[in-house]
């Protein structure tokens, strides 16, 4: 209970004003399986040490994010973008674009004008 991570959350929450009721329960205690699941969603290979480290750190950060539950947002719409721009369009006309050899120039593996990848279907 007295790990360095705990102390930093306390500092953060002290700055923010007060500890939420759920803090002591450690509501967001991610399991190893949950961490592995997230890593698989984003196709990120992780070592055992990384899985454990992220399990602790993500749990702490998400625990801290629980303070957002204090805010009443029932009547509030989300801000996806701060600008009043919507659906910026242009005419459907082709113009100059990147030459194929430039587009392939950084490819780890390229052949006959294609990016080459390992088989997708088994």
């Amino acid at each position, binding site marked *: 209970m007295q790990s360095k991570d705990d102390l930093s959350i306390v500092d953060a929450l002290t700055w923010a004003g007060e500890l939420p009721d759920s803090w002591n329960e450690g509501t967001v205690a991610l399991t190893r399986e949950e961490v592995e699941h997230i890593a698989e969603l984003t196709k990120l290979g992780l070592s055992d040490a990384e899985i454990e480290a992220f399990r602790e750190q993500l749990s702490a950060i998400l625990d801290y994010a629980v303070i957002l539950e204090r805010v009443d947002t029932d009547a509030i719409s989300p801000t996806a973008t701060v600008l009043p721009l919507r659906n910026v369009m242009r005419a459907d006309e082709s113009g100059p674009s990147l030459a194929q050899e430039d587009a392939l120039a950084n490819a*780890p593996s390229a052949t006959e004008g294609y990016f080459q990848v390992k088989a997708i279907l088994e």
Partner: protein
Amino acid sequence: MRLYELTIHEALALLRRREISATELTEANLARIVQVDNDVKAYLTLTPEMALEEAQRADGLRAAGADGALLGIPLALKDNMCLAGVPTTCGSRILESFVPPYDATVVTRLRHAGAVLLGKTNLDEFAMGSSTENSAFFTTHNPWDATRVPGGSSGGSAAALCADEALGALGSDTGGSVRQPASLCGVVGMRPTYGRVSRYGLVAFASSLDQIGPLAKDVTDCALLLNVIAGHDVGDSTSVDMPVPDYTEALRPEIKGLRVGVPREYLTAGVQPGVEVAVRDAIEVLAELGAHVAETSLAHTEYALPVYYLIAPAEASANLARYDGVKYGYSAKDAPGIWETYRVTRQRGFGSEVKRRIMLGTYALSAGYYDAYYLKAQKVRTLIKQDFDRAFQQFDVLIGPTAPDVAFKIGEKVDDPLQMYLSDIFTLSQPLAGICALSLPCGFVNGLPVGLQISGPAFGEQTVLRVAYAYEQATEWHSRKPQIKEDCSV
């Protein structure tokens, strides 16, 4: 005269009077880099041959009677902006070998104005960090104290400028990454309004927050750089189609009657006492210059940190999905099969902070958690924005510290992600609210710079620059320089 110590506006005056040449100016900067960069470690890639060619071309153009907003001026670019033909690594192993086939729009604009590009500066990997310690290659040192960080993520640009290794620099700001290193290095750094500067060619971190901004030795230089980089771009559908004023016209040191708000949440218990004193002294200066200063409140300030650390990683997890070993960058060729290629490429290519944020973002967006985390954060973001909208009805600008502390020691916060995140608390709200902000030096604590942050309404850069200029002209902070150990063996 040490040419590398000049500001952009001083150099332009000398160039225009033919008292110095662009070639001499660039040579002086390149020599300065050789002299100090082994200690400062601001640059990842130097482009001396290209720089000298550009400088010579600038001299030729000037001799033929041409001029340009930045003709012959040597600048540095943060290494997450594409410069065609030159490695753009984003401070990451996954892009260590990536050479962009195109220029970022800001680069095209700088070149059109005649600027000379010296090289690419160090950053936290993919712009994720507040100290430049997350660079996969090395840590940049703060020129004021080499045992301390320059801030981040644009630490290389800020340090290069502070050490006179460039006359100006560009950085990128998502949660404070231009302003916080500017504060820690004692230079001027500005975050323009979202949409003011094109993001085409800026490697994306968080698409609703990223913005390229100038770092400069003084407010005049900041305005000169903003003039060149701002403007609509068809290559960036989030850039606004609004005319770009001449920002140098805003540089009049008169702020009588200007309404300055001081949000009480920005001078709280978490601020280092010396920083608070410096900022309160700065507020006094503004009052003496005739501004009407009053306290105000941005009630949702305390939520900016959790809101940012849900939204930014969520957007980053989407933007960094493209690094899969297929189109560019590192690829784990030894991995058996396509899926393992993805997993191993990303495992080996990304550093731990990047992985942490990708994981956090993926979780916040995943089925079952999207509403509780990402959507909730986007709603609280609306409230943060509304706080600023209300404040700007009563005030022309808002003032506070840029960072809660001065530069910390290298290694001090690296194992403590939440502590590191706290160093951004005052710079997270402005990107969330879609407004502009600038940091400039306002004092020192134990020889380390303190930054004053001036926030303005969306597209209110002129007012922010005017207040900054007035303060700068009434004080001496911008003329203090660090003592850097010069490599005399060279």
